[in-house]
């Protein structure tokens, strides 16, 4: 580390940066507690606490439904991603040259902007009868996050000692069984981190969700909020409430899994 001894001033600068960066979120909280007139008055803080925005938002938006849709899509998408990425990452990590080549192809596919897949998959989903369904969207989002998952998991699989795998083969286990019974349990902290990161990506996704889910009943929260907000919506308080309700679950997960996430991100990226 660069410092010979801990110093004070960097902490002060970091605290200042954190304070400035938290303004947008703090302003959401402030808006959520102010009436329409109070917002228009141009003050930064509520002149008096106005709680009605919270129940009112649930009346103007079917928040429960959208949250549920978001969770269903995100969880299914993570399942799709991990089911495909685990054997894939085992292959890229252990198959030598062939693995490196496949890994390069996966990374190349990650470079393409997701908008590339929107129109073709729109038609594909429709011909499969999966448009306007939660599993259809989850499938696409799950595939979209596959490169990220392979990239992260590859690093974690490489850390599993080869000797243990070799012992498993000697005992007659095939590669698939070794993956299931040896590699997955040993790499589970990394798999949890990769799964969480994919969960965030799926939960936050807008482009595919807004392109494929035309019916309100299957929309996710980002889609619903992106349609709810807008220049004509003067209910700042309600927009703030809906945003905060959408943010809360990811923040809770991020705080709970902080260590694992940081380690996962870093281990994946610094290879």
């Amino acid at each position, binding site marked *: 580390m660069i410092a010979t001894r801990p110093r004070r001033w960097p902490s002060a600068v970091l605290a200042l940066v954190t304070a400035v960066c938290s303004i947008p979120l703090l302003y959401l909280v402030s808006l959520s507690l102010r009436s329409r007139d109070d917002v228009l008055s141009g003050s930064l803080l509520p002149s008096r606490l106005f709680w009605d925005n919270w129940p009112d938002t649930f009346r103007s938006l079917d928040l429960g439904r959208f949250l549920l849709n978001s969770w269903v899509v995100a969880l299914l998408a993570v399942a799709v991603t991990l089911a495909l990425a685990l054997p894939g990452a085992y292959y890229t990590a252990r*198959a030598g040259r062939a693995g490196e080549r496949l890994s390069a*192809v996966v990374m190349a596919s990650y470079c393409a902007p997701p908008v590339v897949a929107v129109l073709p998959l729109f038609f*594909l989903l429709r011909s499969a009868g999966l448009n306007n369904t939660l599993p259809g969207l989850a499938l696409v989002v799950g595939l979209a996050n596959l490169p990220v998952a392979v990239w992260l998991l590859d690093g974690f699989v490489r850390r599993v000692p080869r000797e243990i795998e*070799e012992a498993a083969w000697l005992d007659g286990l*095939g590669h698939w069984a070794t993956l299931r019974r040896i590699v997955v349990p040993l790499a589970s902290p990394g798999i949890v981190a990769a799964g969480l990161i994919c969960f965030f990506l799926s939960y936050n996704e807008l482009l595919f969700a807004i392109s494929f889910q035309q019916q309100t009943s299957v929309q996710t929260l980002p889609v619903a909020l992106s349609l709810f907000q807008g220049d004509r919506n003067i209910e700042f308080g309600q927009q703030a409430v809906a*945003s905060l309700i959408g943010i809360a679950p*990811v923040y809770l997960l991020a705080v709970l899994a902080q260590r694992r996430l940081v380690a996962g991100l870093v281990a994946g990226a610094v290879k």
Partner: protein
Amino acid sequence: MSAVVAPPRPSPSAPADAPAGARPRRRPGLPGLPPRPRRGGRVGRTPASLSWPLIAALLVFSAFPFAYLIGLALTESTLARPLGAFTGLDNLTEALSSTAFKGSLWRSTLFALTASAVQLVLGTALALLLAVRGRRLGWTGVVLLLPLVTPPVMVGVAWKLLLAPVGGALPSIAGSLGLGDPNPLGSPTGAMVTLIVIDTWQWTPFVTLLVYAALLGVPRDLLDAARIDGASSWQTVRHIVLPLIAGTLVAVALLRMIIAFKLFDIVYVVTSGGPGFATTLSSFDIYRTGLQQFQVGEAAAATIVFSLLVGVFVTVVSRLRRRVAGAAG
């Protein structure tokens, strides 16, 4: 924070203990038992079947879309009936004559370059601060994670409300400081700068985390040696630390550019591409053309042009990256 340091990557072609070209020796095993495997030997041959799910997924998510896009671009299509009459290059001509799309290619590039440059500088500066602070990451880790995991739509809504001309925090702060009535989203430059600021808010922590991890890998004795030689902190950073992490910096910058080219949600929520076409980035323009104006063929042709641009861009930067990595040893 030692858990954060990635282990050295084993070299992909780990040399088996036999020299290249030598025939694999058979080891005498016990009768009736398979020959004992050598470390890293052939028993560990990874079956190709493990790669099939991934390859199938790539076919569905990458190969099929590209093939289908070419089909869409060469034909007359509507959302209801794709792949109608063959129209040759009409869609491509149409896409390339669209001012909005042509401009969007330039704006996407400008956005990707500026945003990643700003974030690389700020992110590295913050990582150095964290390293100088010289403690474990602790709660700073949470603070760094939160912007990253915030759903972009919500980030957009928060910033839009913050900047709203009436009822926003910025106008009232500026008003109380006597700075007039700023409305960044009302001017072309202001709107683009706003997008970059929002993206920087969201993504700088990512750069910080990765650079910080690279900093943890800088060998301590090098720094001690520099200090004994009388190098100032800045000299140490400039001549020892930064060259050592140059590879990471370029890799992170490349990754950030790739992600920045994908930006859609913030544009959709905060500016809708406006004012005029000032913030119409390519992903947003293609979405608008295909799914709001239903010009499916034109959108497909535009998509192909856009992905070619990104492809060329990424290739050039990766070449550069290899050169830097080579120079850094």
